[in-house]
């Protein structure tokens, strides 16, 4: 099968689609922030659902998603926001069919898939068996859009190469989950080889804000919170902030009753990280995200608890953010619980999808998680 045939074509780009994996942690010394999937647990889970290693590259989609044509059979999973996934009438005709998310789904060559804007949440992650076949740059295949490193954001017309083994892998892995193909099924349009169904009946639970479009963020006091006058501190916690339209993968700009920043000291630039909440002179906080600048000189008034990173990933323009001050003990407990939940979900996936390790191919980048 030629490389041309093992690929995905972007028929219509979504609001912001990019190739992502777990990013490039540990490179702040060259001023490169981690980047990668905004919710790395969701990306890991999507990869696990199709039998990939956690490091395989997939897609991150934002708000109204893309329309993609699959040029080959693909075993695919979407995890994250409540993006409604449909298969449009394709080369084989037929009608529009809803496909499930939160689980692997077998999609036949020629299918056209569309991810509609999610009613809840903002971003999802799509994994395909074998992963996207892109060269690594500085240890990752991910797009760091802010610094122009890695692949560009997806535009209409772009063709994404898949691992050349994608068809064989997809058939093998679909058979592991769905059972052997049904020889008697009507092998016309939608399933080659034919299964009575294209996805399992279970789904992984997804991590979405419970009171959407309100996101309550657990935050720790930042190093410079105490330089704020008491009235400004109260105003920080007393109001719901609205996520602004200029937000991107670098940071969330939130709007509300501006805090009084008069008299705040000039600070020497210092390292900042995902979840650092800075207060620029205009008095409206900025929450740093995966592609943040690595140093900053504005007062850092809060630090979002690590466990809340998946919530940050779901914050889109117009949704509201409420800061809830927590202590280190609570933040640590939230992190421990989240790690435990991810472990349990991955264990569940391994049980439902017992993909074999192929000993003949130790270089397979898509070994199941062990």
């Amino acid at each position, binding site marked *: 099968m030629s490389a041309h045939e093992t690929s995905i074509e972007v028929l219509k780009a979504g609001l912001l689609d990019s190739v992502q994996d777990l990013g490039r942690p540990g490179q702040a010394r*060259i001023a490169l922030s981690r980047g990668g999937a905004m919710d790395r647990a969701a990306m890991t889970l999507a990869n696990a659902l199709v039998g990939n290693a956690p490091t395989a590259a997939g897609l991150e989609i934002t708000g109204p998603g893309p329309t993609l044509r699959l040029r080959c059979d693909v075993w695919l999973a979407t995890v994250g926001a409540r993006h409604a996934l449909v298969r449009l009438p394709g080369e084989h005709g037929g009608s529009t069919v809803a496909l499930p998310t939160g689980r692997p789904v077998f999609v036949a060559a020629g299918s056209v898939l569309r991810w509609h804007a999610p009613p809840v949440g903002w971003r999802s992650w799509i994994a395909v068996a074998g992963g996207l076949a892109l060269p690594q740059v500085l240890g990752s295949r991910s797009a760091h859009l802010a610094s122009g490193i890695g692949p560009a954001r997806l535009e209409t017309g772009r063709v994404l190469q898949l691992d050349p083994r994608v068809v064989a892998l997809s058939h093998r892995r679909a058979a592991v989950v769905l059972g052997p193909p049904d020889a008697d099924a009507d092998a016309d349009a939608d399933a080659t080889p034919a299964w009575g169904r294209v996805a399992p009946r279970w789904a992984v639970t997804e991590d979405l804000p419970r009171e959407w479009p309100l996101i309550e963020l657990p935050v720790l006091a930042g190093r410079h919170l105490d330089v704020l006058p008491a009235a400004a501190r109260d105003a920080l916690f007393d109001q719901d902030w609205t996520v602004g339209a200029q937000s991107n993968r670098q940071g969330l700009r939130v709007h509300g009753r501006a805090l009084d920043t008069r008299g705040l000291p000039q600070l*020497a630039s*210092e390292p900042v990280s995902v979840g650092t909440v800075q207060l620029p002179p205009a008095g409206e906080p900025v929450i740093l995200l995966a592609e943040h*600048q690595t140093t900053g000189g504005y007062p850092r008034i809060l630090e979002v608890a690590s466990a809340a990173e998946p919530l940050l990933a779901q914050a889109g323009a117009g949704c509201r953010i409420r800061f809830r001050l927590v202590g280190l003990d609570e*933040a*640590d407990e939230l992190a421990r619980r989240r790690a435990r939940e991810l472990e349990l979900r991955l264990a569940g996936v391994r049980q439902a999808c017992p993909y074999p390790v192929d000993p003949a191919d130790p270089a397979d980048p898509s070994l199941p998680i062990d």
Partner: protein
Amino acid sequence: MNRPAAPSAMPSPPEPGAPPAAPIRVEPCGDAWVMVDWGPDPRANVAARALAARLRAVPQPFCAEAVAGVRTLAVRLAVDDAAVPRGRQRGAALEWLRGTAPEALGWQAPAGGQVVLPACYDASMAPDLEEVAAATGLDPAEVVAIHSGCTFTAEVVGFMPGFAYLGGLDPRLKIDRRASPRPRVPEGGIAIAGLQTAVYPSPTPGGWSLIGRCPLRLFDPARTPPALMNEGDTLRFEPIDVATFERLWAAR
């Protein structure tokens, strides 16, 4: 070129063994990082770079990453919440850093590379040169001579890939940031603010005064290391004319 003499009014640094100028703060920063802040001590930046270098050379089990700031060091905790609880790693980091941070004030700056950056100070590439000259009471040629006569140190690598805050600007060129930032500084723009200079690796908004342009590619992921300027490097700028700039720019 007739280079101006070094200024005589540089503050003399405290002795290596002297106590810190203010209490050193070592404290958690969020739940995943620990931060050391040496305060206004003039040895703080060297201490931050030296301690970061030590943590990279002799890894400590609690440390996943060490990042130096102007006078701070941030340590990302090596946590895998399922295996190693955050609280334990944080405790280990705080204890080790509280013991080591005062010592680091006596350490030497780790050796960096020597970098010479070609710089075109032609008026066509230095939109703020006249303004800087007016503000400092110098003429543009003197500004250029002073800037290209300085030896800079890459004190902090940050902001964006390829960027470094270069300390060591002659105080005669000290000038505040511009009142309103430019929406777009061109790639290679050489700028000054306070006692620092910098080169912008890619087009970006910027609030510093532009006095020249460097034709080299400052960051290239395919290179090892990818950045021309790395933490602790010693740098100076070599004046070039427009024709040389064009030739080097075309050759990248």
